[in-house]
């Protein structure tokens, strides 16, 4: 059990002109027993961060603490961390039981006790039938569970999972999500989960740390990331399909402020709070964001303050439980999630409605959220 603190951590690979700044000024605290996901596109520095926490990668500058104790320069085995690898990293010449018990063997636990613990973990992960087999004979899902089991068996302070589901098919993934959630609930251990898949992160984590370009963009719960993204990157990365973005300039109209989208007739109405915030910045250009989920075809939800957009349908993708409309107005293109029975076809002109309080405004330069 441990609380993990990263203070001003930097990682630079290489030197001179070929140096790569992989992790920049990272500050992050993971509470005892918390499940935190590190989420970001490939190359964003999340795996480097995780490897520094485990101790497989040296820290260029900054401090890593477990429960206040400085572990920055300790070897992995001195930190009491366990890790499940993306490629499973099972010992191919060991049986599954030997794989599970290897950490105990290293610690000098007697064989009888090892055996007992192996069976206990195998039971929990439903791999008892394959204990005598060797890794190459197992399916991907079984191998991944063995690798989880090997991490669990020595009851580590921090439990680290690196992209553990990226090689599993959709079915297994669903099962593993459930298993992991259950494990965390039962064991109440500090878990750090690295992934590029927002679905996994949203499903599992208490809090999500979004990284991009070597920097931590935002840390927060699901609702915070979804409704109040810190910047355009987070808004874009979280949510499926991604947020619609428009470059726009403010326009005064009948005493209230609206956002006129460039090269398009689209115009967004803003909540009074947003109007005040935009006025306060005095800016000329902004990025307007609106999630496809927040656009609806239904005009009758008796809200007089609803905004309205008129656009032509470019594509109507039918996905079973819903449809995604890709719409065009002038040069602007955006998407809306609509009920699957929507019959409108290509080039039909339709009206879409939205709640002005759902409109997000970002600074055009820094891409940070204004309101």
């Amino acid at each position, binding site marked *: 059990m441990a609380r993990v603190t990263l203070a001003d951590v930097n990682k630079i690979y290489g030197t001179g002109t070929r140096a790569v700044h992989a992790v920049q000024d990272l500050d992050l605290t993971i509470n005892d027993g918390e499940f935190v996901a590190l989420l970001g596109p490939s190359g964003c520095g999340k795996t480097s961060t995780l490897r520094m926490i485990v101790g497989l990668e040296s820290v260029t500058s900054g401090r890593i603490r477990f429960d206040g104790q400085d572990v920055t320069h300790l070897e992995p085995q001195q930190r009491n961390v366990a890790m499940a690898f993306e*490629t499973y990293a099972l010992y191919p*010449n060991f049986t599954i039981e030997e794989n599970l018990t*290897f*950490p105990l063997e290293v610690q000098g636990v007697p064989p009888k006790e090892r055996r007992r613990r192996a069976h206990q973990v195998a039971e929990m992960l439903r791999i008892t039938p394959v204990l005598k087999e060797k890794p190459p004979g197992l399916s991907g899902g079984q191998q991944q569970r063995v*690798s989880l089991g090997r991490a669990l068996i020595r009851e580590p302070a921090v439990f680290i999972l690196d992209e553990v589901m990226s090689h599993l098919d959709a079915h297994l993934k669903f099962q593993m999500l459930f298993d992991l959630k259950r494990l965390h609930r039962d064991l109440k251990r500090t878990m750090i989960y690295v992934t590029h898949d927002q679905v996994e992160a949203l499903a599992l984590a208490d809090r999500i740390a979004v990284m991009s370009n070597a920097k931590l963009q935002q840390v927060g719960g699901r609702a915070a990331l979804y409704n109040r993204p810190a910047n355009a990157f987070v808004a874009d990365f979280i949510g499926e399909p991604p947020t619609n973005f428009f470059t726009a300039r403010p326009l005064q109209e009948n005493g209230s402020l609206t956002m006129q989208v460039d090269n398009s007739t689209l115009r967004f109405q803003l909540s009074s709070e947003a109007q005040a915030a935009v006025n306060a910045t005095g800016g000329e250009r902004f990025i307007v964001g609106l999630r496809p989920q927040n656009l609806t075809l239904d005009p009758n939800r008796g809200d007089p303050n609803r905004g309205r957009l008129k656009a032509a349908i470019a594509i109507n993708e039918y996905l079973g439980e819903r449809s995604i409309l890709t719409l065009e107005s002038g040069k602007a293109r955006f998407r809306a999630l609509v009920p699957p029975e929507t019959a409108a076809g290509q080039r039909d002109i339709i009206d879409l409605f939205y709640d002005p309080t759902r409109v997000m405004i970002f600074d055009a330069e820094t891409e940070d959220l204004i309101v």
Partner: protein
Amino acid sequence: MTPERKEAVVSEIVRGTPSTYPAWFSARKRSKPLIVSRRVPILLVGLPVLVLLAIVIYPTIWMFYHSLRDTNINHLFSGEHASVGLENYRTVLSSERFHDSLWHLALYLFFGACLQVLLGTLLALIIYEYLKSNLARALILILLVLPMMLPPSIVGTLWRFLLTPSNGAINQALLDLGIISSHIEWFNAGVSLWSIIIADVWNWTALPLLIVYSGRVSLPPAVYEAARVDGAGQWKVLRRITLPMLKEVIAIAFILRFTDAFKFVDLVYVMTSGGPAQSSELPTYIAFQRGIREFAIGEAAAYAIIIFAISAIIVTLFLKYMKRVMKAQGLA
């Protein structure tokens, strides 16, 4: 599609070169598909088979035939040789000279071939573990491989110079270092075999080294990281993870050195000619002596067949072991 049009399309597909190729390259491109008739594959496979028949299979059968006859070089081609049944084999198997040479072979296998594999494995793992710069690795590998590229005659002559008892470099160095107090007589009976083994270890250790090194390079790094996180020390990792994973690679190195051991003649010939008093002879060298020098083709053939049988048994055992290892790891 008309035949002409089809022809044109085919020719376009075959000849169609991306514009990025230079003109001379496009010009060299063949205008016809390579496989024009069903005879081509037969020809391509058949020629090597014929060559193999001529230089491997026919001589083996020929040798087996003569091992059962009292063939002498004088009437090898006249056909005036009679069947002697297993007489040649009896001669060989009961000869003291052959027994001694078998003992020499055992010493050579154990202290020559095995030592080479052990030393090569050790060096390969040390280089991989402690030399992290690619340039340094490449340089040291090239250095270590150099002896392997020298012809045996050069290696033999070189070591005869180095080991010359009275003023050879090795004796001088050992004397200067105070390790020995008088010259070692490197080419006396009982020592000359060891001189050959030393030269051979110097010559061939790089082969198992290269094999094991390339095996080590291809082991998955994630497994080693897992071992680090699990807290395994270097010795534990070596004993429980690295060596077991390199089992079949090391077995291959053994097979190669052992098969070579059975045809090992060159250094014996150059350095000692089997002497003094046949004290450094290996079975193959006797076969060569009896057949080529003393013209007893029949007996030499029997020697060759016996050596072949011994090496076949040993290599089969190795292959069986390898198959078991690979099966255990789910690879075969």
